């Protein structure tokens, strides 16, 4: 860590982990309701549990992106942040809005559409937070060195803010509502978020492998090019059955099938860089998360996405647990893991420790990855059975649910494992390692 103002990232990473834990708690509650539907009191129906689960996820991922940006921007721009004060103010506004939203949800204050349940004043608060952030980051880059990584990162972050504005456009037509809802949801996670993810991975590759920046930046352009060339028209795979023209079945199928390419490129990229790189960086855990991120994103977003993206298949699988399976592995592999990689890399530096508790951190990696993978398999099997019984044989929804209990129990069990691994991760990052061990590894570290 070379710049004092990078320290603001610590706040963001800590806040992200708090909300990560909250997301998992409500994930467990939701999974419980699938197997014991009367387990929770009336003020916690499934709808409220789900909105806290999904909103906490989105907010902690964004908080991680903000933290990652504040950490890497000074090193890329070779200058202090424009205003560390604004960065701290922005954090507390954002964290405050998140807490207010969650407490409000518990008391029935929500309004909107899926993932966008925040009441209007919270949505406006998010816009203020985004404006502060973009102003602060853009000013930092303008006065310093402009690199490809910071340009792509900022383009992604500006895109996040711009497409969020469609959260304010809610037509009375349900068809138009759905069409533009995807401008937020799809153009985020299958569009501009990929820019942020690729930029963070590129930064980590430079730091961890020592490969020449020129090489990494060229890769970065190729990856984000593949992401947007496939992802923009790939939005069409959400337009098959919501009252839009049939041509989307062709456009959506062809382009969204190509959405696997940027993720495949990221796997090749990370492994090639590590293979070529001469640096033996002491933070092995950060490297493990970075490689794991590209691999799990490839399977979750790429393979599991492709599995049900072609219109003739999607006609049957749409709106079943197949979608839920894909969503869990894709969010985890692509966006949770890139954040955990960055947190694992940056936190030891921010806390002025050598990168320690590596063993615990790596155990959490394997446990979390296995847990989410098992959860994904369970939901995939549930989804395939559901697709057949409901969409081929024509059984009713509730009859089919009764057949799926075993899979839902397996999902809950996997969720328990994930919860344990999340606690291990948080402990490994925040708690000091054993001093002696830290010193020993610290002496070996060459950097």
């Amino acid at each position, binding site marked *: 860590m070379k710049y004092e103002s990078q320290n603001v990232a610590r706040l963001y990473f800590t806040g992200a982990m708090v909300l990560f834990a909250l997301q998992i708690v409500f994930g467990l509650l939701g999974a419980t309701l699938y197997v014991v539907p009367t387990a929770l009191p009336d003020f916690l129906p499934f709808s409220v549990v789900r909105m806290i689960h999904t909103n906490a996820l989105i907010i902690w991922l964004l908080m991680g992106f903000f933290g990652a940006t504040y950490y890497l921007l000074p090193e890329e721009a070779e200058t202090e942040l424009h205003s560390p004060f604004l960065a701290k103010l922005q954090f507390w506004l954002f964290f405050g809005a998140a807490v207010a939203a969650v407490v409000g949800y518990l008391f029935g204050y929500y309004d909107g559409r899926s993932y966008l349940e925040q009441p209007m004043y919270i949505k406006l608060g998010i816009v203020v937070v985004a404006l502060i952030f973009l102003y602060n980051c853009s000013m930092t880059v303008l006065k310093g060195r402009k690199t490809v990584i910071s340009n792509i990162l900022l383009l992604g972050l500006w895109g996040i803010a711009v497409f969020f504005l469609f959260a304010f456009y809610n037509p009375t037509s349900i068809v138009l509502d759905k069409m533009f809802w995807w401008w937020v949801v799809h153009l985020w996670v299958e569009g501009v978020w990929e820019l942020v993810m690729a930029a963070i991975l590129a930064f980590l590759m430079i730091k961890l492998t020592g490969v020449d920046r020129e090489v990494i930046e060229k890769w970065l352009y190729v990856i984000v090019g593949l992401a947007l060339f496939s992802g923009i028209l790939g939005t069409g795979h959400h337009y098959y059955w919501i*009252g839009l023209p049939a041509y989307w079945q062709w456009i959506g199928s062809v382009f969204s099938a190509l959405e696997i390419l940027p993720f495949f490129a990221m796997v090749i990229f990370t492994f090639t860089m590590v293979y070529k790189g001469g640096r033996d960086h002491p933070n092995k855990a950060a490297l493990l998360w970075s490689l794991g991120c590209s691999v799990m994103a490839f399977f979750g977003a790429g393979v599991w996405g492709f599995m049900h993206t072609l219109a003739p298949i999607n006609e049957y699988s749409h709106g079943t647990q197949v979608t839920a399976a894909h969503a869990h592995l894709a969010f985890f592999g692509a966006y949770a893991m890139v954040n955990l990689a960055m947190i694992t890399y940056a936190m030891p530096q921010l806390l002025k420790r050598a990168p320690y508790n590596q063993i615990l951190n790596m155990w959490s990696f394997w446990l979390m990855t296995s847990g989410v993978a098992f959860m994904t398999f369970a939901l995939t099997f549930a989804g395939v059975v559901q697709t057949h019984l*409901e969409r081929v044989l*024509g059984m009713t929804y509730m009859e089919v649910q009764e057949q799926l209990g075993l899979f839902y129990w397996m999902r809950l069990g996997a969720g328990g494992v994930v919860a344990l691994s999340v606690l291990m991760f948080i402990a490994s990052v925040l708690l000091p390692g054993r001093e002696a061990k830290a010193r020993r590894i610290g002496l070996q570290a060459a950097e």
Partner: protein
Amino acid sequence: MAEHLTKSAARNIFYGGSLFFFVIFVGLVAQSFHYATTVSETDPITPAVAHGKRIWERHACFDCHTLFGEGARFAPELGHVWQRYGGLEDPDGARDRLKDWIKSQPTRVEGRHQMPHFDLSETELDDLVEFLRHASTINTQNWPPKG
């Protein structure tokens, strides 16, 4: 990475290509906007339908149910609930049955997914059902195949 691809060429391909695909996308969405309002959603969006949609949003119905396959998967798809309740043959009966169902929740039957009790007035219930009836008229390219 291939030697003949320079960084500035990669940059130009990225920015130019992205803009190109985005322009095509915006054009198609504009055409779809027109299609949605003239072809697929021909049943008029009355004030009751619009109000019903607001109730759907205000109570986060989509956080359990799917509509046209979108939403949560904790409760049944509602795109054709109007037909399932016999709305085509007996609209008044279907409306009453749907309202009674909503009013009778939660069932508290062990092992069965629970729907919360919502404090809705008669007008609100009417409008919500009207929104679901309206949704059932939309041309979804014959989705779902069954169920």
